[in-house]
């Protein structure tokens, strides 16, 4: 298959499911630059891994795996590199002041509740909030559904403790 054809196939598949990547970026990005950088990095890795997608799992599960692997294994210092997109629309920064008040409040609440969790817990809660069952979460994370349940209970406890504080 030639490159152009593969690119077309890739973009056709990814463009409708790109919300997954944006959600991961919102979850793991420390600020706007980091989120944009993460988006680009995830896209690069999705493209590099695309030949390994054989349709054995759902495309969304495959995307989650790649996106979360990049986000969890990313410890780079945030530095500005050429960012070629989002010129018209800027991600909202939780550390910034000027927000759309409604969205600002929603993001703030969300980050207050789960911002303190470690990277793996964030992955599990994100998959849970997205409506995935323990089976699918276990499949993406690589642990048993039973252990997902254990992890979820611990995460819920951490969240309620944080909210109380």
């Amino acid at each position, binding site marked *: 298959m030639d490159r152009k054809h593969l*690119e077309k196939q*890739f*973009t056709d598949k*990814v*463009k409708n499911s*790109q*919300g997954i990547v*944006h*959600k991961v970026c*919102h979850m793991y990005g420390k600020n706007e630059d980091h989120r944009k*950088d993460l*988006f*680009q*990095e995830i*896209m*690069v*890795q999705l*493209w*590099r*891994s695309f030949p390994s*997608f054989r349709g054995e799992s759902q495309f969304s599960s*495959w995307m989650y*795996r790649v996106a*979360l*692997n*990049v986000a*969890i*294994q*990313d*410890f*780079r210092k945030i530095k500005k*590199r050429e960012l*070629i*997109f*989002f010129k018209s*629309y800027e*991600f909202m920064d939780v550390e910034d002041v000027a927000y759309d008040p409604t*969205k600002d409040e*929603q*993001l703030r*609440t*969300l980050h207050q*509740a*789960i911002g303190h969790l*470690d*990277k*793996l817990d964030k*992955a599990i809660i994100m998959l*849970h*909030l*997205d409506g995935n069952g323990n089976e699918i979460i276990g499949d*993406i*994370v*690589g*642990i*048993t559904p039973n*252990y997902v349940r*254990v992890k979820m209970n611990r995460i*819920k406890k951490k*969240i309620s403790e944080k909210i109380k504080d």
Partner: protein
Amino acid sequence: MELVELKSIWHLINADISKNDFVEDKILIETIHMKSETEVGKIRRALLFKLVIGGLVTLVGAALLMGIFIAPQKFNTLDFMFSPKETILFYCTLIVSLTAMLLFNYRAYQKVDAAETQALPLKKSLDMVIEAMKKAMNFNIYSDAFMSPVIITWLFYGYAYREDSFSWDWRMLVLAISPFVIGVFAFYVQRYSQKLKFGNYVNKLETYRDELLEENKS
């Protein structure tokens, strides 16, 4: 706050993402052709660089070696240092050492490349990346510890005996000791350098991997 409340906020944010954050095909294509800046990407590129340079040097060395056999006077490019026999021996050592190094280099490269391009579950991916990073780091350490003495000892030999033939004196003692000393020195310098570059990264990945191994304890 209950999870139900978080879920409703999450849905609102998702709706907003679909409305505002989605990018067009053209931008997606531009994005996928950018260079990866991850640690794994960096170490993969470093291995590829060594593979290409090592491959080229081996090919040039092999061509010169063949040239010496065909026309010794014309192709003895190191005649200011070595006799034709010594040059042949030097090239043979270089080619054998580099070929062995390239073989290990290629295996480490394959491992790192696979870790990057296989969409594995998080736990397996962490295992694979940790293993690939350690393999690549070890390759960098041992290849330097092996190649540095080979090249430096040969260069010292060429310089020390440039005016007279081989004889048993202090130079011989230096020749006998230097590979060991240079090898040990190169090993520690490279080990320190690799730890500095990638040690913290691998440690952090191991922490996450161990957290997922907790399953066995609970």
